C-alpha cells in the first residue's frame, strides 16, 4: 500500500472521516493540558515575571508559521511533479492557517516585547523575517483568489511558492546581514537546558504538539472542503455537458 493512494480525493475524504475525530480529540487534550499547565501551573520567571508565559502561544505559532510554508512548498512540488489534486488543494488549505499563525506570532511577540525590550516593535531580524513571511503568504493567497481555473491556479501558485521560498530564504539572510537583533537564541534546541528551564520545557512541548495537531485537524478539514467544492463544480460541469 502506497502513500500515493491517498492522493485520490475520494480515498482522502474517507481517510479524513476516520482521522478527524482522533486529531480533534488530541488537539483538545494536548492544547488544553499544555496551555493550562503553562499558564497556571508554572512559576514566574526570575527575570521576566509572568510575561514569560506567553511563550506557550508564541513559540508554537511561530514554529507553525514557518513549517506550514515548508509544507506548502513540499505539496506544491508534489503537485507539479505528480499532479495529485489533493496535494495542491492541501497547499491552498494550509495557506490561510499559515498566515494566521504568522499574525499570532507577530502579535504575541509584540505583547511580549513591550515588557522585555521596552518596545512593541523593533526591526529585529527575526521580527522582520516574520513580517516578510507574512507578505509572502499574502501574495500566495491573493494569487489563488485571483485565478478562476483551479488547475491553472494550482500550477501558478506552486511555481510562485517555489520561487517565493528561495527568495524568502534569501530575505532571511539579508535581514540578518542588515541588522543584528535583540532576540534571544532559539527557544528550543537539542540540549534543552540551554535556553528554557525545565519547568517550562515540558508544558511547552505539549503545547507545541497540541498546536501541530490543531493544524493537522484544520488542514484536513479545509482540504476536505476544497475537495467538496471541486466535486460540486465538476458535477455541475458534467450536468451542463450532458
Amino acid at each position, binding site marked *: 500500500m502506497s502513500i500515493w493512494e491517498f492522493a485520490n480525493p475520494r480515498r482522502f475524504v474517507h481517510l479524513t472521516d476516520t482521522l478527524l475525530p482522533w486529531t480533534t480529540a488530541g488537539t483538545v487534550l494536548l492544547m488544553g493540558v499544555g496551555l493550562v499547565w503553562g499558564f497556571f501551573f508554572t512559576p514566574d520567571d526570575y527575570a521576566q515575571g509572568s510575561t514569560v508565559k506567553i511563550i506557550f502561544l508564541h513559540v508554537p505559532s511561530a514554529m507553525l508559521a514557518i513549517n506550514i510554508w515548508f509544507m506548502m512548498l513540499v505539496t506544491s512540488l508534489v503537485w507539479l511533479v505528480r499532479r495529485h489534486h489533493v496535494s495542491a488543494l492541501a497547499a491552498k488549505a494550509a495557506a490561510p492557517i499559515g498566515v494566521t499563525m504568522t499574525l499570532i506570532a507577530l502579535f504575541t511577540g509584540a505583547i511580549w516585547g513591550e515588557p522585555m525590550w521596552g518596545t512593541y516593535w523593533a526591526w529585529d531580524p527575526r521580527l522582520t523575517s516574520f513580517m*516578510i513571511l507574512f*507578505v*509572502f503568504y*499574502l*501574495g500566495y493567497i*491573493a*494569487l489563488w483568489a*485571483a*485565478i478562476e481555473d483551479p488547475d*491553472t491556479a494550482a*500550477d*501558478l501558485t506552486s*511555481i*510562485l511558492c*517555489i*520561487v*517565493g521560498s*528561495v*527568495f*524568502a530564504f*534569501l*530575505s532571511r*539572510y*539579508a*535581514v540578518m*546581514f*542588515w541588522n543584528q537583533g535583540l532576540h534571544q537564541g532559539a527557544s528550543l534546541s537539542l540540549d534543552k537546558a540551554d535556553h528554557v528551564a525545565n519547568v517550562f520545557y515540558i508544558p511547552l512541548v505539549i503545547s507545541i504538539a497540541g498546536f501541530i495537531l490543531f493544524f493537522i485537524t484544520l488542514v484536513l478539514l479545509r482540504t476536505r472542503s476544497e475537495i467538496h467544492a471541486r466535486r460540486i463544480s465538476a458535477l455541475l460541469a458534467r450536468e451542463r455537458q450532458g
Partner: protein
Amino acid sequence: MIALMKRDLQLALRSGGGFGLSLAFFLIVVMFVPFGVGPESAVLARIAPGILWIGALLSCLLSLDRIFQLDYEDGSLDLLATAPLPLEGIVAMKAVAHWLTTGLPLTVAAPVLGFLLNLPVEGYLWVFLSLAAGTPALSFLGTFGAAITVGLKRGGLLLSLLVLPLYIPTLIFGAQSVTRVVEGQSNSTAFAILAAISLFTFALIPFAAARALRVNIR
C-alpha cells in the same frame, strides 16, 4: 532571439512609454521625499541611498505589466510559443529588453538625482554601480511576476503584491552597498551578494517564468 529584443526596443521607443515614464516617476518620487521629511540636508544625505534605491525599484515596477500583456492580447505570445525559439530564451530576452528600457536609464539617472538629495560624495559611484548590478535582478524577477499574472484581467495590482516581496534581498544588499561606503565601512560583501543575486535570477527565472507562461497560454 535578437530579433525579439530589437522589436521590443523598437516598440518601447515608438510608443513612448518605456524610457520617459519610469524616469519621470523616479524624479517625482525623489522630489517628494524632501516634501515629506523636510529639507534639512543632513537628514536627506543620510537617507539618500535608500531613497534612490526604493525610487528606482518602484519605477521599475511601473512597466512590468506590459512585458507580456500586450503580446498576450494581440496573439503574439501564442505565435511566439509555437515559434522555434525556446520559451526560456523569450523570457530572458523580454527581461533584458525591460532592463534596457527601464533599469539602465534609472541607473544612469540615479547619480544625478542623488545630487538633489545631497548624497555624500563617496556615494555617487556606488549608487551607479549598485543599481547597475541590482536592477537586472529587478527586471528578471518582474518578468517572472508578469508571466504569472499575464492571463488575469486586472493583474497589475496583484503583480506588485507578488513581485515586491521578491525584491527584498535585492533592495537590502543594494542599499547596503551604498550606505556602507557612505558610512565609511567596507561594502564588498553586500556588493558581491547583490551581484550574485542578479546572476542567480538570470539562471533561475527564465525557467520558472517560461513554465508559468506555458500554463497561462494553454
